[in-house]
């Protein structure tokens, strides 16, 4: 299946409250065609996108989906271990594996020579799953039920065809506006769920009270 189509189906399956980060110039261009307020496009990520998503995931209960190619992941492979160690249940990497660097004319990456792609990720304490077959068989109805129940930290491995969609318009976004929009979307607490535990505890301003045993005794006698 073409990457462009996979992205489209993925976006249909995700919840409106999810945040999507796209990394890489060609990938961003393809995803930009379905632009939304909850999307963050990083054209020149050079390995920052996944960590950026993890930082967001640590501070919100909204699910963060980072779409990236295997070349980008290989550049910062350590991020898999970081994500696994974080134990954040709301971070998902969607790894669109097309076997090469599309911006460099499809020059092959070394990802194909990895003995076990799933093993590489799984051994970093990160869940790994693939929906390639489900997408190919167009089982979207089943996936629609399954997607809301996905729990991270997870890498979703997706095999996609080589090549990019031609004739797409260039991304025309003001990065400052994009930052403000996504930040506003994250901070919109009206859609938050009870899952969220803030990472930073508030300053202690309440005085602690000790248990008064005499009071308990009095209560018992009455």
């Amino acid at each position, binding site marked *: 299946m073409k990457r462009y189509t996979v992205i489209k189906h993925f976006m249909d399956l995700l919840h409106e409250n999810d945040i999507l980060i796209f990394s890489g110039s060609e990938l961003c261009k393809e995803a930009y065609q379905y632009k939304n307020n909850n999307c963050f496009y*990083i054209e*020149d*990520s*050079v*390995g*920052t*996108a*996944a*960590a*950026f*998503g*993890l*930082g*967001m*995931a*640590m*501070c*919100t209960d909204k699910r963060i989906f980072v779409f990236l190619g295997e070349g980008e992941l290989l550049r*910062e492979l*350590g*991020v898999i*271990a*970081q994500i696994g160690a*974080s134990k954040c249940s709301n971070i998902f990497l969607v790894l669109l594996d097309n076997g090469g660097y599309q911006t460099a004319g499809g020059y092959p990456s070394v990802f194909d020579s990895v003995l076990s792609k799933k093993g590489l990720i799984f051994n970093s304490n990160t869940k790994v799953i693939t929906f390639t077959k489900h997408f190919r068989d167009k089982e979207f109805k089943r996936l629609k039920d399954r997607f809301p129940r996905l729990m991270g930290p997870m890498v979703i491995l997706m095999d996609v065809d080589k090549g990019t969609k031609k004739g797409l318009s260039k991304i025309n976004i003001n*990065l*400052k506006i*994009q*930052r403000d929009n*996504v*930040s506003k979307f*994250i*901070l919109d607490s009206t859609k938050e769920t009870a899952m969220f535990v803030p*990472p*930073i*505890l508030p*300053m*202690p301003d309440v005085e602690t009270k000790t248990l008064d045993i005499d009071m308990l005794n009095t209560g018992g006698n009455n």
Partner: protein
Amino acid sequence: MVKAKDFWNYLCGELDYRFFAGVACPGLSPLYKKMKPKFMHYVPAVNERIGLGIVSGAYMAGYKGGLLMDMAFAYDLTSFIKFNVNNRIPLLVIGYGDRDSALTYDFPSEFINGPTYDKKIRKVATASEFEKIPGLIVIKEGVLS
């Protein structure tokens, strides 16, 4: 001398920087020893770039933060923080080194070599927040205790 405890009190209490990431660096070891887990959140990062990404992501969710880093990366700092400059995401980069590593960049930076660190940090933090770009604080080797 700069007491690490006071440094954190100022950064977390006064300036409200609460989210930090970084890679353990020997020059900043007093800062690691005196961290206040109740008032701040620290993420031990696999490397500096990942730490930078994590702090930037946290900023998007409303937490001001900083990156503790080894200034051995300082030669490449401009390209290192390009992501933040492009996307206008401020953060404090805290490292240790000499005066040169603090003053060669065209973003807010200060060199801390004595007890008057508070005004310098505030200056960098204010400029970084106002311009929405990273700010750099370089602490002289041996000044922290």
